């Protein structure tokens, strides 16, 4: 067995993982483990921007971190933890300026300062951007700094399972994708930064690789999933492929039209119109489609034509390219066909009440970025806050751990027992997959995705959610007998995708289960049979545990006290 030892292991090489790595590698021996090369990570697909109260625009004077925090908390439908939101918004201007000092190619104002644009649910234009490819610009910037600082990468290594020893994290088992061998990585600290898990849905803007490997591994190690019922459906994904069409397109002045040529947003958000928060716009579009005011019963129009060729080419070149390449439509000439699609996971790996931001209940295990639930987004995330979250908490966790110092390692004999047991489990799994005669993984994956889309989507009911939990339970059973060849393990992506499905089924099940439990409507979670918010009963975080192969729900208090709880109106 090949063994690697480090002070800290970071799983995931998107913005969160890289930023944490850059901080920690100043002093410690670290490894960044990623199933793809860093620049392939899904952070790079973020388009619109990163929020910070920099007040670079005249209209932005008067913006403050506190105003940013208020918008974030209100946008979260008051489920976000207010202390951690305040912290993020105070760090925001610093983290954006820091990105610039690293060389990030932001778009600029005539003054030479970083440009900012208006975004949904925000009181001021505070979204900094690099054209409509902000994530790409920032991811490449951190990758460049990683080269400069000699960060230690294990690229194309897939996280399979975590292992514990002496009641703390002791390391993880990863599959070296190229060689096909299992490797034990030992470390007293592990940071999970594995990103979103939107691929549990059939229609998602997420990359194919967004499968929740970290969430699944943590869950199997006893860490709960938190708030996973809160799934952001982005209002505008391209009909057909569900590739993201940035909110920036509406920020730049794009309109939404139904088949009666009405700007239907005036019915649900007469003031904010197209720039209402994402959950509200997504529900409005879904309603138009359900009530037959959409096109082909599937989509509405996002119209940019009135913006003119010059503005579209300058501000939204990526959107134009995507529309032309994937839908054969030039937005200068024609409206873009859009429909809501899964976009972001507000929930994720559960964190400790009153711990460090990102600390889990398992000593030494931390989590940051989309895979985590800190919770800065509560029941609904504002556009421009996800890129922000990645870098703020990547830097923060790095600084905190350095300050805390290295812990006493678990005893070597305990570590050896734990890693051998973990590897034995995985080998048994591989052996059974190779010998099984049941369904192919694709059949299970497709049914899971369709079930979530149909029964755990924009609008939810008790009946649909019960159907989903029943179906998912059956799929879990079928998965035990799934078959895939595990003999030749080198670049065996069929095997990798089966390992991904293993985690996704757990997350899908927990998502349906938590959605069923939460009998209220809050943020992105909308129950037709319980259409209002119920703060008396549900102003709490849900924590889903696996207890003897059954799901069990607990709750965690929300950190309040800075902003008053109010009705959420736009």
């Amino acid at each position: 067995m090949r063994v690697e030892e480090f002070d800290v292991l970071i799983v995931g090489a998107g913005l969160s993982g890289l930023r944490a790595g850059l901080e920690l590698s100043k002093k410690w021996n670290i490894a960044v483990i990623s199933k793809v090369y860093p620049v392939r990570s899904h952070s790079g697909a973020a388009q619109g921007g990163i929020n910070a109260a920099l007040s670079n625009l005249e209209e932005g004077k008067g913006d403050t971190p506190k105003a940013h925090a208020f918008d974030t908390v209100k946008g979260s439908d008051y489920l976000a933890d207010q202390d951690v939101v305040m912290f993020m918004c105070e760090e925001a201007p610093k983290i954006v300026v820091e990105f610039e000092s690293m060389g990030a190619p932001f778009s600029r104002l005539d003054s030479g300062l970083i440009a900012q644009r208006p975004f949904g649910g925000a009181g001021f234009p505070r979204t900094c951007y690099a054209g409509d490819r902000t994530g790409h610009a920032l991811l490449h910037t951190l990758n460049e700094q990683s080269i400069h600082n000699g960060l230690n990468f294990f690229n194309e290594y897939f996280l399979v399972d975590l292992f514990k020893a002496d009641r703390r994290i002791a390391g993880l088992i990863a599959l070296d994708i190229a060689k096909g061998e299992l490797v034990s990585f030992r470390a007293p600290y592990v940071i999970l930064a594995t990103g979103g898990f939107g691929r549990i849905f059939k229609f998602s803007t997420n990359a194919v690789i967004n499968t929740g490997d970290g969430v699944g591994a943590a869950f199997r190690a006893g860490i709960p999933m938190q708030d996973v019922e809160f799934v952001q459906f982005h209002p505008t994904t391209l009909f057909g492929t569900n590739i993201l069409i940035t909110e920036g397109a509406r920020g730049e002045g794009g309109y939404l039209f139904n088949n009666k040529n009405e700007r239907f947003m005036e019915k649900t958000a007469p003031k904010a119109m197209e720039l209402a928060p994402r959950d509200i716009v997504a529900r409005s579009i879904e309603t138009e489609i359900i009530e037959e005011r959409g096109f082909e019963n599937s989509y509405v129009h996002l119209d940019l034509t009135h913006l003119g060729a010059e503005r579209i080419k300058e501000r939204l070149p990526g959107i134009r390219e995507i529309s032309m390449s994937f839908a054969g439509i030039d937005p200068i000439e024609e409206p873009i066909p859009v429909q809501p699609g899964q976009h972001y996971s507000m929930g994720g790996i559960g964190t400790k009440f009153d711990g460090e931001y990102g600390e889990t209940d398992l000593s030494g295990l931390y989590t940051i970025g989309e895979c985590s639930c800190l919770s800065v987004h509560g029941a609904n995330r504002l556009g421009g806050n996800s890129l922000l979250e990645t870098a703020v908490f990547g830097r923060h966790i790095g600084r905190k751990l350095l300050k805390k110092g290295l812990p006493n390692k678990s005893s070597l004999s305990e570590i050896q027992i734990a890693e051998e047991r973990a590897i034995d489990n995985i080998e048994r799994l591989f052996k059974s997959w190779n010998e099984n005669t049941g369904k192919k993984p694709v059949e299970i994956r497709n049914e899971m995705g369709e079930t979530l889309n149909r029964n755990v989507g924009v609008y939810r009911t008790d009946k649909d959610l019960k159907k989903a939990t029943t179906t998912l339970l059956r799929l879990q059973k079928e998965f035990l007998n799934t078959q895939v060849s595990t003999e030749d393990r080198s670049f065996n992506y069929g095997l990798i995708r089966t390992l991904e499905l293993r985690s996704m089924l757990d997350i899908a099940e927990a998502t349906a289960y938590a959605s069923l439990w939460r009998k209220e409507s809050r943020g992105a979670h909308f129950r037709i049979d319980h259409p209002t918010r119920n703060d008396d009963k549900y102003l709490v975080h849900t924590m889903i545990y696996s207890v003897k192969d059954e799901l069990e729900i607990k709750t965690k208090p929300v950190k309040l006290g800075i902003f008053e709880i109010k009705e959420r109106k736009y």
Partner: protein
Amino acid sequence: MVEKHKFLVYRNSGNGKSHYDKFEFPVSKGMSILDALFYIQDYFDSTLAFRYACRGAICGSCGMTIDKVPLLACRTQVSTVKTSKKPAKLPEFKFSDHPEWDPETEILIEPLPNMSVLKDLVVDMEPFWKFYREIEPYFARKWNDVAPESLQSTGQMKTIERLVYCILCGLCWACPVSKENPNYLGPAQLAKADRFIRDSRISDDRQESILSRVLQDDAVPACEKFFVCNRVCPKRVMPGTAIKDIRNNWINE
């Protein structure tokens, strides 16, 4: 109407021996070549190896050669492969002898050219990353998080914008020079160098250091102006033009 399509896919288990497998299956509306490869992996052969991530032409993972043209598989539609315009004057890419390929009815899928194959459509990108690191593609300013940020005019930003969009997919290594000279840094690498050289915020030291590397024999001077890179680049980075600019601006003749 369900239409069946035929695919001829390059296979190589990494031991040097290669062959081609034929697949035929119904294609749904809007199916990309990447979707088709997933279909093969899901239903016919789970061991078919290819890289992927975003499926939206932004991550740069799925570069391959489709009907003899280097393309991103995710952005290439099965239904239009045969009818879309091919870039002019591409060199011929040869991977091995393959059975009769009928260009009229079969879609031929092969790895990226001028890189060694690890398995099936997965190539060894290590030389690509090594040369990328070699041009030192980074700022070395001390990190600062106190506003204001350093200034840059919109015009100065515009001079690097096109270059910034490079996704490091490796299609430009279809360059004939990359084929002949294993030490040639490569078009993407030199375009990235230009991105830093031109950035108004770069320090003189950094600029000199990057220039000193890319002006060596195996870099800018090695370019033979085929401009294959410009024609295959999926992001219109125009690496060949960037190389020309470096030559024009920094080499005194």
